């Protein structure tokens, strides 16, 4: 029983971390219908910035996270404005290809700058844990989970209570109408991408503190975000959190009671079943369905 509860708690926390990584990916996909294959690379860039700040200036990664997010916010804006906006109206695989090219460049660039070494941001507390009746709760993951929840709440509030958030939502629903209402779509798209990139960077800083990272992780992180975004349902700000938690629990329980090598199979099995049975994802799609592209 202890084992089961331990697996559950850990899976839940792991799910929070998954969600943190995926939330930006889900946002971009939901609002702009763009699958950003460079997302994993963005996460890594964030991790490297936080790592560099930590090793060079001793800045705690939970603070470095903000600097990383700020850098990627600017970078994300520029990338969307100058590159991705150019192919937004093309068939969907064009954006796939564009972001794939970006991913190759970023990953190769990271190897050139930081080598392929494994890095980890060392803190005195991240891998420590407290116990409640033999159940271990690691601090770092708990922070990560709390942050995922906080960011999700913030994003929900931002999207439904600020002019800018509403403008993003409106552009996501019907771009042509939004433009007629005087919303500058190019700017809004770039802003959405910037927010997503900043979220990715923040996730990277936390990920780098809890685990290890190297440039080769980019593809895996993107793939994971794919699964989570679809599981949760696109365009729903709660989707990433729901998808992350479901995946975290599925992997934890699967790993506990089945062969350890089956863990990945479980993730994709759940994905395909969810897609076929409930293509809208676990939380449905409140506005994505209403989209009118044009």
């Amino acid at each position, binding site marked *: 029983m202890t084992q089961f509860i331990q697996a559950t708690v850990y899976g839940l926390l792991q799910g929070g971390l998954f969600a943190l990584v995926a939330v930006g990916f889900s946002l971009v*996909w939901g609002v702009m*219908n763009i*699958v950003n*294959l460079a997302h994993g690379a963005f996460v890594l860039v964030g991790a490297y910035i936080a790592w560099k700040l930590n090793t060079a200036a001793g800045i705690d990664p939970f603070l470095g996270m903000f600097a990383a997010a700020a850098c990627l916010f600017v970078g994300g804006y520029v990338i969307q404005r100058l*590159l991705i*906006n*150019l*192919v*937004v*109206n*093309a*068939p*969907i*695989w*064009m954006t*796939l*290809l*564009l972001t*794939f*090219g*970006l*991913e*190759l*460049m970023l*990953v*190769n*660039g990271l190897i*050139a700058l930081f080598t392929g070494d494994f890095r980890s941001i060392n803190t005195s507390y991240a891998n420590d844990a407290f116990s409640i009746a033999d159940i271990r709760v690691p601090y770092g993951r708990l922070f990560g989970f709390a942050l995922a929840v906080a960011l999700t709440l913030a994003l929900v509030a931002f999207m439904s209570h600020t002019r800018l958030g509403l403008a993003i939502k409106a552009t996501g629903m019907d771009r042509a109408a939004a433009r007629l209402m005087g919303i500058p*779509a*190019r700017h809004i*798209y770039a802003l959405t991408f910037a927010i997503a990139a900043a979220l990715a960077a923040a996730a990277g800083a936390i990920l780098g503190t809890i685990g290890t990272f190297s440039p080769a992780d980019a*593809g895996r992180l993107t*793939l994971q975000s*794919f*699964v989570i975004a*679809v599981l949760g349902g*696109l365009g729903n700000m709660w989707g990433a959190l729901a998808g992350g938690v479901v995946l975290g629990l599925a992997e934890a329980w699967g790993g506990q009671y089945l*062969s350890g*090598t*089956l863990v*990945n*199979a479980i993730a*994709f*099995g759940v*994905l*395909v079943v969810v*897609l*076929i049975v409930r*293509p809208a994802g676990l939380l449905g799609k409140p506005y994505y369905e209403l989209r009118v592209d044009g």
Partner: protein
Amino acid sequence: MAGIAAAVASSRARGRRPLTRGTLVALTLLVCIALPSQLYGSQQRTWGAMFMFVVLAQGWNVIGGFAGYPSFGNVVFFGLGGYTTAVLMAKSGCSFWLALPLAGIVGLLFAVLVGIPVLRLHGHYFAIATLGVAEGMREVIINLPGLTGGGAGLTVPAVGVDATTSYPGNDGFYYIFLTLAVISTLVVWLVARSRFGYALRAIHQDEDAAAAVGIDIIRAKIGAFAIAGALTALAGAVYAFQQVSIYPGRLFDVDITVLMVVMAVIGGSGTVIGPVIGAVGLQLLSEYLRDNVTEYHTFIFGAIIVLAVILVPQGIVNFVRDARLKHGVSLSESVRAYRL
């Protein structure tokens, strides 16, 4: 998409062009057949790999380019074809020449089986579902160590006393891959000219309208997926034999899917010749970069993909056609085509 149809129609009208085109195709083929004698072994291998990617890009072209269903998991057929061949040769002592068509059939059947539920999905959902199928299949293969060797891989009996078929060598594989590339291009050519091809294009344009005019859209989509599955599985089968030792990580590598999409799209998806140009061009480019810019070749390759997507988003073939129709090349117009 209607490019080839238009081209065929206009060439019929002017009478002399099909002949010229036929001559050129024949000439190209002759060059390809004669080429190996002029090449080093490893160059034959490189060209063989290029032809393999022609097959993969054409397979994707049928489902992605013609039907407009952006499969992101075509590598599953590649992997299945490879493992079918390897298991048949290693575990039941089959000859490669028996295993090869069986692998094609396995790919075809699997496409039908998976296509029935998955082809109900559209756009990104279809893309992700196919990706999930491919990744899931890799995990299944890893978890059947008795049959497939699991994560440790499987070795095809290619040399020594266990060998079931004599190993073809670089020139042998060159011709096998060339044959497959020609067959797959021929299949796509036939599809492009057939009623079936028009049905696929109609589905691509507007699925509901296609259904309304009496096209059996489910059968057409599954048919397209099955062709893609069979072609891709055949390529995987030959690849497995050529590699001798195969691993699930490589045989189901998502990068292979990405490459076939890149090649088909940059060449010109939905055309007959586009994927050929894309596969040949990108393979040569990547080989050249790997040889000459050891440390930064993936960076430059990535940059070229980004540029190609932005400058010629409609693919090389369509770009050239448009330029000819308008009697001039305008990159800026091409860039603006899909801009927000």
